[in-house]
């Protein structure tokens, strides 16, 4: 039991290590970077299929400073898809959304909901995987502890510990599955053209409203020419596929994952 006291401390240290690794910078500031040149040096990496949250983030910064807000938002979302705890990408995306003058804003979240979403974002896919393993090992140990617990003693404590660990194990495992699915099939997309028309139906010819470049939408249903999307404020409509770019591009038909 005494050893268990160190568990929160251990987890805290482990998490601190992750945070330090994930947010560490190694640069010297003060010189205005050449964004076009930086972009040209990064694009071959992306074209070769390299996936890296910092790479996507830096691409987003370059695109933003070169005036391509849509691409910037897309790469910040891609960075978040790889690492939902990428704080700089999250802030930059919020900054781009705050510049949106179309008036389509997500309703403000209550404070507690914000905390929940922050916790959800903090546990990125790989952090969840590591946490899931830790919980699996701890659950196994607590099962063994319970099985070997002296018969003459009250079993309340090991049962309680095992119960709590199993509860976390189930929650973390479920979240890991959900994040894994989202990592592979993220339905988010970004409007790539300023003033893209949003239609009320798939065949409507008159636009209901126009969206700003860089607006993030969620694709509900993909059609041949248009896709049904849900906007940040919860409203919906249809938008031409050519004006959208998915965070996770669709694989060509027939390809195997």
């Amino acid at each position: 039991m005494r050893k268990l006291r160190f568990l929160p401390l251990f987890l805290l240290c482990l998490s601190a290590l992750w945070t330090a690794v994930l947010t560490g910078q190694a640069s010297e500031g003060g010189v205005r970077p050449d964004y076009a040149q930086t972009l040209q040096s990064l694009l071959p990496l992306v074209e070769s299929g390299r996936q890296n949250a910092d790479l996507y983030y830096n691409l987003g910064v370059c695109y933003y400073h070169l005036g391509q807000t849509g691409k910037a938002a897309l790469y910040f979302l891609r960075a978040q898809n790889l690492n939902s705890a990428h704080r700089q990408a999250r802030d930059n995306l919020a900054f781009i959304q705050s510049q949106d003058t179309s008036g389509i804003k997500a309703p403000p979240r209550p404070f507690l909901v914000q905390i929940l979403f922050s916790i959800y974002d903090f546990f990125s896919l790989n952090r969840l995987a590591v946490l899931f393993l830790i919980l699996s090992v701890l659950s196994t140990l607590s099962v063994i502890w319970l099985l070997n617990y002296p018969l003459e003693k009250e079993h309340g404590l090991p049962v309680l510990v095992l119960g709590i660990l199993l509860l976390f194990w189930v929650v973390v495992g479920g979240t890991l599955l959900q994040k894994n699915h989202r990592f592979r099939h993220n339905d988010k997309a970004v409007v790539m053209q300023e003033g893209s028309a949003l239609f009320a139906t798939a065949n409507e010819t008159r636009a209901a409203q126009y969206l700003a470049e860089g607006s993030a939408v969620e694709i509900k249903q993909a059609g041949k020419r248009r896709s049904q999307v849900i906007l940040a404020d919860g409203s919906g409509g249809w938008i031409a596929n050519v004006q959208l770019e998915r965070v996770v591009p669709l694989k060509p038909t027939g390809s195997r994952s």
Partner: protein
Amino acid sequence: MVVTRPKLWLLLALPLLAVLPAQAVKVVGYVQQKEITLSEQLQVVLEINSDERLNIESPRAPKIEGFSYRNMRNSSSSETALINGNLSRSYTLTYSYYYNPQRTGKFSIPGFRLRIGNRDYSTQTLSVEVVDSPSNQSQQFNTNPYIDPYGSSFFGRNRTAGESLILAAPQSQSGYVGEPAVISYYLYTNQMVESFSTETEKDYEGYGKSSFEQPPNLKYEQVTYKGERYQRALIKKLVLYPQVAGRLQVPTLTGIVQFSGVYSFLNKNISSQPLWLEVNALPGGKPAGYTGAVGNFTLSQTYSDDKVTQGEALVCTIKISGTGNFSQFTAPPFPPLAKFQISEPSLQDKLANPVEGTRFIYFTILPSETGSFQIPGFNFSWFDTSAGKYRTFTGPSLELTVKGSNVLSYFSGLLQSGKPKTLNPLLERKSYPAFRNFSARIWFWLVLAACLLALAGAGFMAYERRLNRLDPNHYAQKTANRILNKYLHQATEAAQSMSADFYPLAESGLLSFLAKKYFVSKGLTTPELVSALAEKQLPVPLLKQIEEFLTHCQKARYMPGGDAAESLRDALNMLRSLVQAFSRIRQPLNSGFLSGGRKLILPGRHQREVTK
């Protein structure tokens, strides 16, 4: 006001429009107020901004349900900015459409669709709400759609004799290069003028300009001009930003005066009278980092915190308040800082008008290492027009403590209100390793498999312990059989390899089996053992077999030629027949089991039914 042009001109203009796609054009539509009363007018504004001068037809007024269209006015403006040695120009065409509301409710305003060059542009759909007028507000618009809105406040003039002219009035006759000069254009008249619509603004070299104010209605005031009484109404206010020193002529404004009533056919084109400004050059000795700010400013600088965690951003805010050429200068970069990433400056203006207000400059500073650092103050230089000299502001420096990050530091942003003020800077990375999904790695599944194996092992052991606890006899038999099988296997291997180890292995295996199964001591001599087993009611032939085998083993161990193949084969056969005999007597007779599959209730604390 729509200007009709001959079709020939249109045909000539089309090829010219086709070469425009390279220019940067921005089209924005908006309404002045999202909520108006029945007694107010709706003003829908379309702004077309380009880096080249555009020559396009006035877009059609959108048809809005619940509104009657009244009038349209257009204007153009240009801005020239010299920032960091780069001269940039922008031209803005503004079309204002006026509507009168007909009923209350929420209405949708269709977006504008227009073609500039070979590209289509569209603006978003807008909405407006019309509410009832307050009861004490008696003024109502004339519902006749053909009367110009200017006419509503034009009373008291009943003669057409006299003159109408436009006078440009500068705020100051002289200034410095870059110092904004506000020029007001007034319509002076002593005639019965119904309305005035601006047609053109003729520009001259040496300045950039932007619109300052353009009132929707003519609001007259009584003035005396050249000894005569006139009605005067402001038509437009422009801000000029002189780019060169010398004598600059201000833009000439041309428009059409429309008289009211039966004299409406006497429309008249009038232009503003020429006006010059004296522009002085800025003195030499520009401070380093000077970005072209001219005016009277007060500055302050603040940091968001003096303690941050690694990965957390420090925001530096510079506040510039006062009067000056806000549209003509930008922010210099933040002083270089080792071990910090610094964002591009982000500007946010809260201006009462183009030349007066407050500008906020934000820098995001990301520390890369923990420790204590000295952050220098921000430097900003401007030319103070009231003092006639350059001034430099240096903000206070900051002793910044950067702590290591932890779990809680990730959530620190939750308590900060407001949106991010600027874009976070680039992250310096020497390499970008490919993302690896841990849950798809082999070690992830190996650890999970190890956990499962550990659980299975622990479960098995727990089951064995439970079995031992609940029924020690049954458990003893199980383990005895395991021992017998184990030793038989080992002994067989020894016999096959013609090893003399067969005898001790077979003997100790048999003794362990008997001790475990029949609870006899392993230290007994052969006769004592046989005697003890006889008490357990083992069959006599089996007892004989045991005795023979043990005696044979003891002899063979010390007998010359005991490890001969024949002797070993005989001993192995004896052992096998013994094992077979024991397998036929699976349960001791006193253990509570009966042959023939009959059930028996076991004595003891944990009673259970067993079946053979």
